[in-house]
């Protein structure tokens, strides 16, 4: 009897939990309500099935308790009943599958006149690209990546010259416009996921993938990487700012084109390098603590290491920490930083940048 | 209740335990090789595929493997007839030429490396080394099994007792030959 009572509590609790759960879909901010609908239909059907079957089980346990003087009924099979149950289940499955497939058809059908944006993922940050005036993305190649050419664009391709580069993990989008994302990764698998938009798709190095949505609510939304990509996977956060058309155009006009970035100066500045290489995923410039030590007010300070030494955080320390991070780990931090093989120019630029983050 | 000589159920397949085991093993190995071929065919369509030259030695090696199979066939027949001398000769031929094949394959590897066809420089190279490597390892496993049976034949007076094991080994040899022919054909035509 104890079992029946406890199991009944579990079953009822399971159903009631749906009414009181504090964790539910985030407020929908895109056109993909059909995905929510499919889930809700699934909840109803599976919920009903769960209650019916569980109730039947508990009924049997109560009604058919063991008794010496009884015998169970001897019924090896009942083909008619089996057939009926199969048909009912098949119908249930079709009711689930049909709306799901209809929604999928819509999901994979990229709108032809949508706003084109490219999302580029890397360990452990995001960057973005718009195709610019000509509406066509410039060619890219994996072998062209460098900390200066952080999108791997082919400088000889005229289509790429006007591409607008967002070398930042925040991108802006205009509200109520269907937006088609082309997705690309520089290194390993990542996944572009904004819970409020519902859509997600992996970024696969060596190929393109796509997703599309229409943002319907103005606001700022977080991009959460949804495919394991190494020790910084949980810190790979980006932002999508949805705003009205005018504000969007204003923001876009302030962003540089590829041609402009190529003219920026030799090694690029340190701030660009740390953004383009993803250092910002773990190090902040404002004093906040993160996976790695903050750069603010750090240059030329004394620092304790996990081995008990005290070192000076000078230029050579910083360069060593980039080329061979595991040599000295700052105390209180984990030994998770991968090594970066940078040129002397790039290293100098970073040192200068970090130096400038110290208040005099 | 009457005494039954056969105290087990009617067999699904009129095969011995060892035959079921080995045939099923061949099915599993086939699936493994099918996956490799699948990956090969998928990869060869990409632009960076550069076909390897055809080392002449591969033809000689193929001949060795054919000779090995013939040796095993001979051994198999000899064991059924209880012909001990022919049996030992057949086993010897089967084992020797399988080893000659393997050594020949290693020499081919050496030749390719000396011509700068390294394993990682091109996917065609990688697949060549992978396929010949996996095939070679499976053949080596067969040679180990053959050694066990050959050892047993030393201690038994009547080789008919080994006829079922020998014919299964011969089947394995023929299978390895067929697999090699398929892969060799694949290399030649791509």
């Amino acid at each position: 009897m104890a079992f029946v009572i406890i199991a009944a509590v579990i079953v009822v609790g399971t159903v009631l939990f749906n009414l009181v759960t504090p964790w539910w879909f985030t407020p929908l901010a895109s056109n993909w309500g059909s995905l929510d609908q499919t889930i809700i239909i699934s909840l109803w059907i599976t919920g009903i099935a769960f209650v019916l079957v569980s109730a039947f089980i508990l009924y049997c346990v109560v009604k058919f308790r063991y008794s010496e003087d009884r015998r169970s009924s001897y019924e090896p099979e009942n083909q008619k009943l089996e057939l009926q149950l199969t048909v009912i289940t098949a119908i249930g499955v079709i009711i689930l599958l049909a709306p799901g497939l209809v929604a999928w058809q819509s999901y994979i059908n990229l709108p032809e006149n949508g706003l084109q944006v490219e999302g580029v993922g890397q360990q452990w940050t995001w960057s973005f690209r718009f195709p610019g005036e000509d509406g066509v993305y410039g060619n890219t190649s994996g072998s062209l990546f460098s900390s200066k050419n952080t999108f791997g664009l082919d400088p000889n391709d005229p289509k790429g010259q006007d591409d607008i580069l967002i070398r930042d993990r925040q991108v802006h989008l205009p509200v109520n416009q269907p937006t088609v994302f082309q997705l690309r990764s520089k290194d390993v698998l990542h996944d572009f996921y904004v819970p409020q938009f519902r859509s997600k798709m992996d970024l696969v190095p060596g190929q393109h993938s796509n997703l599309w949505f229409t943002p319907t609510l103005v606001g700022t939304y977080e991009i959460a990487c949804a495919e394991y990509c190494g020790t910084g996977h949980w810190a790979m956060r980006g932002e999508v700012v949805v705003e009205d058309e005018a504000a969007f155009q204003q923001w876009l006009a302030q962003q540089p084109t590829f041609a402009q970035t190529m003219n920026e100066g030799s090694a690029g500045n340190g701030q660009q390098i740390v953004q383009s290489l993803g250092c910002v995923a773990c190090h902040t410039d404002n004093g906040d603590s993160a996976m790695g030590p903050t750069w603010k007010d750090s240059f030329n300070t004394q620092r304790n290491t996990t081995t008990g030494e005290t070192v000076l955080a000078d230029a050579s320390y910083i360069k060593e920490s980039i080329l061979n991070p595991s040599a000295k780990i700052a105390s209180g931090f984990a030994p998770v930083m991968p090594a970066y093989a940078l040129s002397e120019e790039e290293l100098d630029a970073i040192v200068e940048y970090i130096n400038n983050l110290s208040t005099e | 209740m009457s005494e039954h000589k056969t105290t087990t159920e009617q067999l699904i397949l009129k095969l011995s335990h060892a035959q079921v085991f080995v045939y099923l093993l061949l099915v599993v190995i086939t699936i493994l090789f099918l996956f490799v071929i699948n990956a090969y065919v998928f990869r060869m369509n990409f632009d960076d595929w550069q076909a390897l030259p055809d080392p002449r030695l591969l033809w000689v090696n193929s001949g060795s493997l054919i000779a090995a199979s013939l040796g095993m066939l001979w051994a198999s027949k000899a064991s059924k007839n209880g012909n001990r001398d022919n049996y030992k000769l057949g086993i010897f031929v089967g084992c020797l030429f399988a080893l000659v094949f393997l050594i020949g394959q290693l020499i081919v590897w050496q030749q390719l490396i000396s011509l700068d066809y390294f394993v990682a420089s091109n996917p065609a190279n990688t697949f060549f080394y992978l396929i010949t490597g996996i095939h070679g390892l499976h053949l080596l496993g067969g040679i180990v099994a053959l050694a066990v049976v050959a050892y047993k034949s030393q201690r038994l007076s009547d080789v008919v007792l080994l006829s079922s094991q020998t014919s299964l080994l011969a089947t394995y040899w023929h299978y390895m030959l067929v697999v090699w022919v398929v892969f060799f054909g694949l290399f030649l035509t791509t």
Partner: protein
Amino acid sequence: MEQSATYEGQPLHHPKGWWGHYVFSQDHKVIALQYTTVAITIGLVGMILSLMMRMQLGFPGLFDSIDANSYYQDVTMHGMIMVIYLLTALFLGGFGNYLIPLMLGSRDMAFPFVNMLSFWVYLLSVLILISSFFVPNGPTGAGWTLYPPQSILEGTPGGDGLGIVLMLVSLVVFIIAFTMGGLNYITTVLQSRAKGMSLMRMPLVIWCIFLATFLGLLAFPALFVGGIMLVFDRLLETSFFMPEIFKGGEVLDYGGGSPVLFQHLFWFFGHPEVYIVALPAFGIISELISCHARKNIFGYRMMVWALVAIAAISFIVWAHHMYVAGMNPYLGFFFATTTLIIAVPTAIKVYNWVLTLWHANIKMTVPMLYCLAFLITFLIGGLTGLFLGNVSADVPLSDTYFVVGHFHMVMAVSPVLALYGGLYHWFPSVTGRMLDDRLGKIHFWITFIGTYLIYFPMHYIGFLGVPRRYYSNEQFDFIPASVGDLNQFITICALLVGASQFILLYNFIVSATRGEKAPKNPWGACTLEWQTLEAPPGHGNWGDRLPVVYRWPYEYGLPGATADFIPQNVPDEQIT
């Protein structure tokens, strides 16, 4: 060629000395115990790893030593250990080895020497896996799915060290062990059954283990090939799966490979793998539920056909793990359809178990409690699978805690409940003693309620969108603080459930030597393993003469008979 149809023509191997009896034994019962011991031991390691993960999620910062590296190593090793080295080895190596010859009326497996070899090779694979904990930079932290490129690169623990290499080598060795054992099982089931034991008179657990073995033999080669190619990419810098990669400020020396190819290979193995775990659990439930409800299993033939259908369809659903992996989107239609189709035979099995209870005579023994708990938790786990299989519903839910909740329910909670039920049920057969009932019930309740409380709420933070494989949620505003509270609650439940497993262990050890002596066939079961002359069965199982089978294994409640069960080897003339 004359059929070597019977053990009666072949001498049974007789062990010599202590080593031959207990260590290098070729007796399937000893080998089963060896598999079980190693699997449970490594399973405890896997459980402790999961508790370390839970400490980070529930009480972040409490243990400084759990940094992002060690967290991901815990996640990865926990997953791989549990799926492969515990569940697959215990269900197939442990239960399979013990039950197949006994339930089929055979003296031992078709090839006892190969059977013994398979155990030692399995042990070798476990030792190789453990050794990865002791290499510099530790074991791999690539996630149990080991996806390239990250799994073999710096930035993932063990990626540029020995961790990933040892994992892959260990898997290759395991697959060799599995192949040896699996071929043995198939041969034994097909060719070594007692007279009268036709295929359609085999107990369902044997059908399940038989089909699971088939699945393994056909699916593991895909992992084998994928693993070897990944090792090549790691050690020889080939590019099977490695495209051009810009990392650490430089373009790496790879190019042209496809990470999605690895996923296809992995999941072609990976999906049948979950049925390799689930099917034996189904089989155990079929045996337990009919025996403890004193009623024949409902719809035996449909159960067999459902199993065959599940096994066959399981090979064409794999890419439902890859809906958002960047593969051709039109494949989504195909795989969603096949995935939801496989729900139908699975549902039939659930109906048949449930209908077995209808007009039954149910004894609320510990095994029956586990059966009922299995049904409830498998319902949850199976039904949530319908959400994920439906391709568009999977889009928001993929890689969130909804998936974590789902797969733990179907792989960890329900099969483990079935497993525990099986241990309680067959313990008297193995040891001749009963497990303590009271301890059994305490262990049951804590495990059942505890695991439900752990995994059920996860589905809802999945709806919220909390991604999986996150070391910490603090970076994200859309994740409220209440999720942290839930994580704390779940961790506490996990610690309690983890601790309660030691009740089972204690029960095992004490009852094995001091438990109440079991009468022969204490549960009144019809299947052959309880009908041996000696209990526990001696070497060779059947004494002088193999049994002869006259009926199916579920003759419970036969009208007109005095006893409420008739064992399989009792002819009609002897029924009173």
